[in-house]
């Protein structure tokens, strides 16, 4: 591993809360590592668990699934399904051998630019410690 290796994080962000939160981090000029790339989805409930697996397959070192706080879903219940799905899926991926730090599920509101930046910093630190992900990943 070269010393300047940086992890690659794919983030699924609901457009109403987390994506807007990330925008707020931008307008507030909060610096965070350039490790994350967001996929804008209408709701965290749109995130098919297989998307997460696909990200790891194609070389993501970490995946973030983020949406509105429970109770604040633009569609009322999308994130509550997300909560159930990803409670299971995260445990299942760990059961398959994935390190827990590699998948994070977070509720980040449109007002939480600070928190968004913080989550990315934390994840980047965790992933730097773990190094590149090789599990479930296809040969490059």
């Amino acid at each position, binding site marked *: 591993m*070269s010393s300047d290796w940086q992890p*690659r994080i794919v983030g699924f962000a609901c457009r109403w809360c987390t994506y807007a939160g990330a925008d707020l981090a931008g307008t507030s000029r909060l610096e965070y590592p*350039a490790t994350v*790339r967001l996929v804008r989805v209408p709701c965290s409930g749109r995130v098919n668990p297989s998307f997460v697996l696909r990200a790891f397959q*194609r070389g993501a070192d970490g995946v973030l699934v983020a949406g509105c706080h429970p109770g604040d879903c633009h569609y009322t219940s999308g994130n509550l399904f997300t909560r159930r799905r990803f409670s299971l899926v995260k445990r299942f991926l760990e059961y398959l051998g994935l390190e827990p730090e590699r998948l994070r599920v977070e509720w980040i509101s449109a007002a939480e630019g600070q928190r968004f930046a913080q989550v990315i910093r934390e994840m980047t630190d965790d992933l730097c410690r773990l190094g590149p992900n090789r599990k479930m990943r296809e040969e490059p």
Partner: protein
Amino acid sequence: MPRIGVVVCWCGHNIAGTVDVTQVTAAAAAMPGVVYAEDYKYVCSEPGQDLIRRAIADKRLDAVVVAACSPSMHEATFRQAAAAAGLNPYRVEIANVREQCSWVHRDREEATVKAVALVQAMVAKARREEPLEALRLPVTRRALVIGGGIAGMQAAMDIADAGYQVLLVEREPNLGGRMAQLSETFPTLDCASCILTPRTAEVARHPRIELLTYSEVREVAGYVGDFRVRIARKPAYVDWDRCIGCMLCQEKCPRKVPSPFERDMGFKKAIGVNFPQAVPNRPVIDREHCTYFEKGKCQVCVRVCPVEAVDFEQRETVREEAVGAIVVATGFDVLAPAEFGEYGYGRYPDVIDSLAFERLNSSSGPTGGVIRRPSDGRVPREVVFIQCVGSRDPDRGRGYCSKICCMYTAKHAMLYRHKVPDGQAYVFYMDVRAGGKGYEEFVQRTVEQAGALYLRGRVARVYPEGDRMLVRGVDTLSGQTVEVAADLVVLATAAVPRGDARELAQLLKVGTDAHGFYNEAHPKLRPVETMTRGIFLAGAVQAPRDISETVAQASGAASKVLALFSQEELVADPLVAVVDETRCAGCFLCRPVCPYQAISTRVAGNREVATVNPGLCQGCGACAVACRSGAMALKGFTDEQILAEVEALCLRTGSPG
């Protein structure tokens, strides 16, 4: 392969200061499918937009990716620009290289690599894009208001006054709802019927309000702008068109039965109206209690009716109506306090609920407005009011505050003192909640001027002693056990949803909370809208509220309806779910996850498949994830598109590591 154009914005120094825009443009030019890549200082400016428009025309572009600020800033701008050049506006994608890149990263190389990846992802998405057409839905400019109480009447009046037709459906034979049962109203103590009666009359004669009383909504189909509603009118056994409202029938009817309107403290006839000022002033026959229906003879009403309006053969009739919007104003019920055995309700006639006390106060009530207790008709000298009966009681399933009880109890104590100057009112309370204009002052007056004795604590038991009721509770302020001997005990029972609120909610595809109150679309920002577009809430159907709030909300709902009706046609986002019927197995796992109940069954060939009502769908995409086979796709965010984005974002080219 679609021909894609990429335009990279400098945003002056905002993007170009951190991201090497030239490099991003060069990288974009080499991406599969990209036939045009250019950068520009300010793409959102008029010359910038013109650049896009010219590129679309000159390069025959099928899609455009703009690498610029957040889509929340200028997605609409660029879509309009594209549309002006003849490109489907939904074939414009934004790579957010400002808020999510140049503004948050410092290292130029890293930021540039990331910007390239973000562009790559959007190019990948754009390649898999279908042109989408905004959904255009026609609007039937006619509203249905369900519920003829104060909320429904207010909403109906506001909509009708603005010039639109209103269909007002009321389950009871007459308008008025709960408010018709009230005596006076807090905090002004003006008489309820004095403010209600003119309003009911106004509604009844409004040229644009069609009144359907004694009717119920049975079926609701369609969606915003085009609801199809089936309404059943129950048989009144009186031809209301012939009837002239002389009420001779009521007068002569030999059958007297306890009146639910009077909380069974008074009587009504088997034919007649609930109360004298009823609008419409037309009688109905209470089939359950009518001697003719019971025994096949009597027919006094038939004989006395001067216009031969009585018709025992009348049947329920059902009509179908088309409306563009629906206001639900079905109000509330009060909890049957029977489940509170410790208070002796139902066992002891002198334990009554607040609604009954309203009737005792009412000059048109069973006692003509004199407060007499039900058991022996004596005027009570000491009255105990118990608040929070069933409310704020999570152990029994109702943790919420019924909100109106504090105020009406204060009102009752005040009215009682007015009518029985030497009487003493005791109020057992948990907290007094008197938020509202003039409310706190009113409670103060009740204590100070009417001399009501407020005791903080829960009542443990009510039991008879002699001809009085002994109320035992704990004063939590003093810690003392308190015992009051009362002539009358009045329970402020919880306001609860109507018994059949859930069934109606299902018809309307509107969500309810754990208790059965209807859910608003957003508790703060969309308090009168429901999750179903075109259906609005007014009054206590949503949560307990007092008259002034109810009226305000009803006007709010009406204004939402008017906003809807003021549009030529409804334009809906085409980013909705769609079913590939060849792949749908018809398992309907998608249905429970849809918050809008937009998914229904369709027969395709020899099997049932899911189908999405695009007027109801709001595009959250939960169904697309619940669908295992991938038959359900969310337009604009298809699996193929998201997977392509993921793949592009994972690509490591020229990046460190």
